[in-house]
């Protein structure tokens, strides 16, 4: 039996002149696309969504199936940035949400919300090293008070991790449970190539051991995010 779907506009990051607005939706019932009365759907977004819809209608949950990880599609117009979320209609037992609890996460930072308190740095250094030292933290807040900048810098948990690719000795390995890149201190030769490869400048070095400090997501449930009362840090599924 096929699953019926609802496709909802979750967010408009750019500019959509149609316009599609957050909350706009259409449904996929069997092989029919049903648009609510008075509603519309963007043709370009629809053509991006099309190949995914039948896949999403399957009622299976296989290991290593990539489909459950992909419930969001962004419209192909680079200026548009309209994000569509595909969800099961009527909350049926579909494959769509079945594995979400175990999905690997990443930390996403919003500089416009960051108040610059650096609690995340203290939380991280205490959680990993048992001391309070911002220079022992895997997350840091880049600040420039002359322009009011408070920007948390932390590992983006890249799908194709350049740090791993760059490491000449293979000291960086992905933790299969969390998806985080972790450092094998016995192999690492402290050459700092990983830090130069990171496009986000998110890798720094432990002042004591000289080893790279890369966010390990605290095993999947990052403590800095919990302690961020300004909610500038957020955990999102990858």
């Amino acid at each position, binding site marked *: 039996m096929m699953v019926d779907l609802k496709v909802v506009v979750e967010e408009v990051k750019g500019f959509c002149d149609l316009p599609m607005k957050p909350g706009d939706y259409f449904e996929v019932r069997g092989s029919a696309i049903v648009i609510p009365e008075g509603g519309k759907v963007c043709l370009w977004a629809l053509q991006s969504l099309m190949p995914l819809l039948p896949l999403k209608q399957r009622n299976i949950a296989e290991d290593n199936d990539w489909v459950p990880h992909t419930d969001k599609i962004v419209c192909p117009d680079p200026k548009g940035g309209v994000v569509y979320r595909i969800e099961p209609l009527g909350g049926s037992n579909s494959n769509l949400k079945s594995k979400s609890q175990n999905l690997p996460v990443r930390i996403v930072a919003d500089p416009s919300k960051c108040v*610059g*308190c650096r*609690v995340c740095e203290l939380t991280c250094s*205490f959680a990993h090293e048992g*001391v309070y*030292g911002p*220079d022992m933290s895997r997350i840091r807040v880049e600040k420039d*008070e002359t322009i*009011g900048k408070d920007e948390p810098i932390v590992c983006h948990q890249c799908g194709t991790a350049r740090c791993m690719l760059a490491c000449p000795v293979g000291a960086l390995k992905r933790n299969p449970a969390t998806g985080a890149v972790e450092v094998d201190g016995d192999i690492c030769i402290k050459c700092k190539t990983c830090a130069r490869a990171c496009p986000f400048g998110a890798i720094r070095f432990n002042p004591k051991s000289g080893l790279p400090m890369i966010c390990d997501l605290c095993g999947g449930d990052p403590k800095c995010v919990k302690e961020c009362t*300004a909610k500038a840090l957020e955990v999102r599924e990858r």
Partner: protein
Amino acid sequence: MRSSYRNKVLDVDLTNGTAKGEPLAGGLIEMYLGGRGFNVRRFFEEVPLDVDPLGPENALYIGIGPLEGTSFPGSCRVNFTARSPQTGLLGDSNAGGFFGPELKYAGFDQVVLRGRASKPVYLFIHDGVCELRDASSLRGKDIPDTQKAIIKELGDSRVQVAAVGPAAESGVKFAGIFCNLVRAAARTGMGTVLASKNVKAIAVRGTIPVEVALPQVFDDLVAEIKKEILVHPQYKGRVYLGTTALMSSLNQLGCLCTRHYQTGRFEAIHQVSGERLADTLKIKGKACFSCIIPCSRYVRIEEDGKTILASEGPEFEGLAAFTSKVGNPNLKEGLIAVDMCNRMGMDVITTSEAIAFLMELYERGDISSSDVDGLDLSFGNMQAVYALIEKIARREGIGDLLGDGAIEAAEKLGVGEDLVMHVKGLEIFKADPRGLKGYALGLAVASRGGDHLRSEPSFEFSEDAETAKRLYGTEDAAFRLKYKGKGKVVKDFEERCAIADCLNACKNTLVNMEILSYDRMSTLLHAATGIKMDPEDIRLIGERLVNLERMYLVLHGVTRANDTLPKRFTEEPLPEGSGPSAGSVVELEPMLDEYYEARGWDKDSGIPKDSTLKRLGISGLVDGALRRPSNRSQFEEDLVLGR
């Protein structure tokens, strides 16, 4: 043993360009805890009473507290202590932000600056090392440019800079030391002292982590405290408005300083309130290091697509200084004036007093525009305010007169000495003391002159009659317009504030939100430092510090006669239109009697009794100060005490 203290003091001789590190003196921790306590203790013992505040013999002490650098929220402040060039008495001022923790990470509990450098320098303190670096290219630079230049030169955006601005360099006596651009240790002229040593700035950077004695106990306790803060009744309001909430609330009570304390309500309050600021110009909240209450704000003013101001701040004092106090209904213009003071590196409280006091004289016809470089000093004329701020900072024209402070200006002008709103040479805050009897007493007795932050007896707003009765023996203590019990309240809160300053933690949380009882402080300090102190011993540290500071004033001739308020507050009732505070004056004497008695001070003289000093273990220290040889300096002869 692991401890959150560094047990290390950096002692810098600027004259000879040398520095040494030494351990904290034995017993210092148990008796003085840190920060203001460490500073005042050493200052009292080491600096001659009659030292010229701007001479090389006046040492500047920079102290931080035991919780600095840990996760305890708001333990980020730094105290600067020296003899004040502004008051001639105790100079002591502290600032929040990020400088204090960075000093801890650099490996020190305290820095002492002695002598005077032969050429302009700045200090760079990093991981146990101190360098004196050439600052000749920084001369005359304002605070933001100084910070930018130093961070650029050192090539590390994590360097924290405490700097002085052009005002300090031109000898303005109420110049501050500015950390993080706007985090000012503004009061009592500590910036002027630093500049007199030929030091433009102190830059710190440290990577040595803080290890507490009992990590898990400490972390759990901090987590518990944080949870309480997040559900505290004041939490949301503080995140929304911070101290700027006082604009509306004091106006409501009828004791917001308006047109230089002539009335207690500002008719344009809605245009300049904290709410207005937050709703129209605030971009986002800002917090000090390790704090979970982002009570500060980043603001931006744009006109015609151009940014004309982008800065953190202001707090209540700055906001009121250049709106209600000078009769200005324009929020943006008020913010520009605050920003000018911050850039020049001047105390907004004293600067605004110098200006508003002249405005009142002008309004009364006691001075005319020919006396003030042709300026029209009508209340609300912000162009004149801007001009005066510039002139003061550069000490040009009338600004040269005002640069010594409003009191000296009044003397030289020969008018309005009674109209300068100060106690012992330090100008008071922007609440009208007539509507806040406990604060009024606090101002009268504060150890650095007219200062609200020495006591902050916020309990008198609580209207919590039951607690008042239990703690202070009378229900009146919980009501701002009543007198009974205020002596005891002020004593209690002075000690809490002293402890907050020794911990160098924030008084908003420690004193106003009362998140750290003495009991809990004892547990927390034990977990941080490994040192066991009874709750009562900690309270005694506060009491000892208040008494030691009092003795410093007493040795300078201060007595009960100096514990007073400007005549306006004791004789002229707040006018009609001041809401529930209308008709109030301050009757100081009964409160003073109660205060001295609670303190164990002689009621007639206001001097601590020998038995009190003995009980607190400071009589030897006081005797020592009396025995030191004295050479009265020119400064001393110029200084008229008890004005």
